[in-house]
């Protein structure tokens, strides 16, 4: 019977391990600037720096690093040297919350850029709000983060005063994709898939509402587990449903293989997703089968904005190994918004950082307004960006190419 008890222990370990996918955190201290005296202000970064979503996470970290370096070079805020402290959340809400606690504990941290995932943000918001530490996400698109759980029922209520974001919400991203598909691409039969995460399910829901309103039909719905790479059963369902387009609410680690498997099974229909699939890694993962797939992303393409030319050039010059990806510009702007707020504090206080700076940074954020990489950066009464630009991209000839930019009509 000894063997049997070992087997039972092992089974328990197995089941437990399933829920605890690779935990642990690794501190990645950002490159510290030399700094010549004066006050040090740390801008925290929280993003997935390892794992499936690391391409996006490293883009965020590097862009914040660039903003901080430039502020120091220019001596943008007199007497203040900025530093970054980047922590890895591995896209796990539990790690995100630990990181939030760590950042709160460091008195020099006056603002945090991140996280990437809406689900991670949910676990961090209260920690930051209790400590009155400002948080600016370059990538969260879930509307409930800034407008409360009942945002869709007309009753918008901001849950946390310390939460801001430079990214547009799914409340307009999903409908924007629906309008493009029905009105421009004339695809009226969709198969809807999401990964059940805050971001994916929210995006799919807002898409579905607008799509059916515009007269499109939903041929089928399913949810996938993004940890798995075998989507054969879903793919078979898609094929026999006769849909002419697939909408996926989720991120590229699952969307890439899913798109590839759909086409390989013989269903030549495009997969459409949100900013979570707008990544060079989606192209790599979906391979040549992914040609023709569509993604919406927040803002206008960074490369086409005159305001972003400097950012793109400086990013290149700084020699970062990883690309800035979808959120680079938004991360730079998020960091710069914090820098602007700190500058206002210092200027108003006669060149010195006032006491209780954290709470005052939140107040100052409300008045921030400047021309950033992604356009005008300022925040509305919910902490959302006032920039509501969106763009549809298509996977064409081995890269994402912008197809249509605009605001929600």
């Amino acid at each position, binding site marked *: 019977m000894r063997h049997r008890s070992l087997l039972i222990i092992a089974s328990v*370990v197995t089941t437990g391990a*399933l829920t605890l996918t690779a935990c642990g955190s690794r501190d990645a201290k950002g490159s510290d600037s030399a700094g010549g005296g004066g006050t040090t202000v740390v801008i925290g970064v929280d993003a997935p720096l390892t794992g499936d979503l690391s391409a996006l996470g490293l883009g965020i970290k590097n862009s914040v690093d660039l903003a901080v370096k430039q502020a120091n070079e220019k001596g943008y805020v007199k007497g203040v040297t900025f530093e970054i402290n980047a922590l890895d959340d591995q896209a796990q809400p539990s790690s995100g919350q630990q990181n939030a606690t760590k950042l709160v504990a460091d008195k020099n941290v006056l603002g945090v850029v991140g996280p990437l995932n809406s689900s991670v943000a949910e676990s961090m918001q209260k920690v930051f709000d209790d400590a009155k530490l400002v948080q600016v996400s370059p990538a969260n698109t879930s509307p409930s983060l800034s407008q409360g759980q009942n945002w869709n029922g007309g009753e918008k209520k901001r849950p946390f005063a310390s939460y801001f974001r430079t990214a547009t919400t799914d409340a307009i991203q999903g409908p924007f994709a629906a309008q493009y598909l029905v009105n421009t691409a004339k695809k009226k039969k969709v198969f809807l898939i999401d990964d059940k995460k805050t971001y994916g399910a929210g995006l799919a829901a807002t898409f579905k509402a607008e799509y059916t309103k515009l007269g499109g039909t939903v041929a089928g719905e399913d949810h*996938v587990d993004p940890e*798995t790479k*075998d989507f054969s059963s879903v793919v078979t369902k898609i094929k026999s449903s006769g849909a002419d387009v697939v909408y996926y609410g989720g991120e590229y680690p699952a969307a890439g293989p899913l798109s590839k498997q759909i086409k390989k099974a013989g269903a030549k229909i495009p997969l459409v997703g949100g900013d979570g699939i707008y990544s060079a890694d989606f192209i790599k993962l979906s391979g040549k089968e992914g040609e023709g797939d569509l993604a919406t992303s927040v803002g206008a393409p960074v490369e086409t904005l005159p305001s972003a030319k400097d950012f793109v050039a400086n990013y290149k010059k700084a020699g970062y190994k990883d690309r800035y990806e979808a959120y680079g510009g938004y991360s730079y702007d998020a960091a710069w918004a914090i820098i602007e707020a700190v500058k206002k504090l210092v200027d108003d206080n006669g060149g010195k950082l006032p006491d209780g700076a954290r709470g005052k940074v939140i107040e100052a954020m409300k008045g921030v307004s400047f021309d950033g990489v992604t356009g005008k950066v300022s925040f509305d009464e919910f902490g959302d960006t006032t920039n509501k630009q969106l763009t549809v991209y298509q996977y064409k000839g081995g890269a994402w190419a912008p197809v249509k930019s605009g605001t929600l009509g």
Partner: protein
Amino acid sequence: MNELPQQLVNGLLLGSMYGLVAIGYTMVYGIVQLINFAHGEIFMTGGFGALTVWLMLPGGTTLWLALPLMIIGAIIVAVTIAVGAERFAYRPLRGGPRLAPLITAIGLSLALQQAVWAWYPEAKSSRSFPEIPGGPYHLGPITIQTGDIFLLVAAPVSMAILGYFVMRTRTGRGMQATAQDPDTAKLMGINTDRIIVVAFALGAAFAAIGAVAYGLKYGEVQFRMGFLLGLKAFTAAVLGGIGNIYGAMIGGIALGVAETLAAAYISEIPGMQQLGGQSWANAWAFVLLILVLLFRPQGLLGERVADRA
């Protein structure tokens, strides 16, 4: 229901892969009663071994020529790591409390994952794996892709070779004897240390073949690919009756088919929409495991000592 044949094939393919990896769990357990949780990661390193061979070959090499070399490369890497793990991580603990090697296995699993993550070039996210061009092929209502053909051939061939090896060769019979009673086997002149190494090596070789199949089927390998698949393969081994090599394959296929059918049809049962869909496939796989363990704790084929090897 007209998609049923296709769903069954989907399940069969997924299950064959589980089965190939499950063989390693079951053989090692059969002989040393150790659940080698690092086996999923040995599977993963096999995938990276095959990828390395592909990257070293001159560009333009056809996959048909490269494939045998890639399989050999995968097997070499996986077997080296498995044998090394046996020699340096498990052997010193043999005879100690049973939990010690189990914990070591979990630690080794994490270490291997992190090692590939840290040191293999660009392995921090998925790396693309070459794919066989052509296809898909249609057989009535069934569509089969080129990547699946390898699996359809490799799984039965591997099973046949393994069956022959265990039943007919000297070493194979030595394995059976060691599984039945290590001490007596030793007295009969069987070098049990060598037999244990062979069990680890064979399990790793089949995992490596499974990893090549994984790469060809999904077009990518990544440092975490062995984690969930390893858990599933372990489940398959328990399902089929741990210690029984045929049970591993049967358990793998049963698990793959059950998972696929659950993902495809549970949501169509009235009132079960919430529990259907691919996101619940893992949950249903473990429901199946629990049911089998409740009603047939020895697994589908049982762990009869005579078959254990």
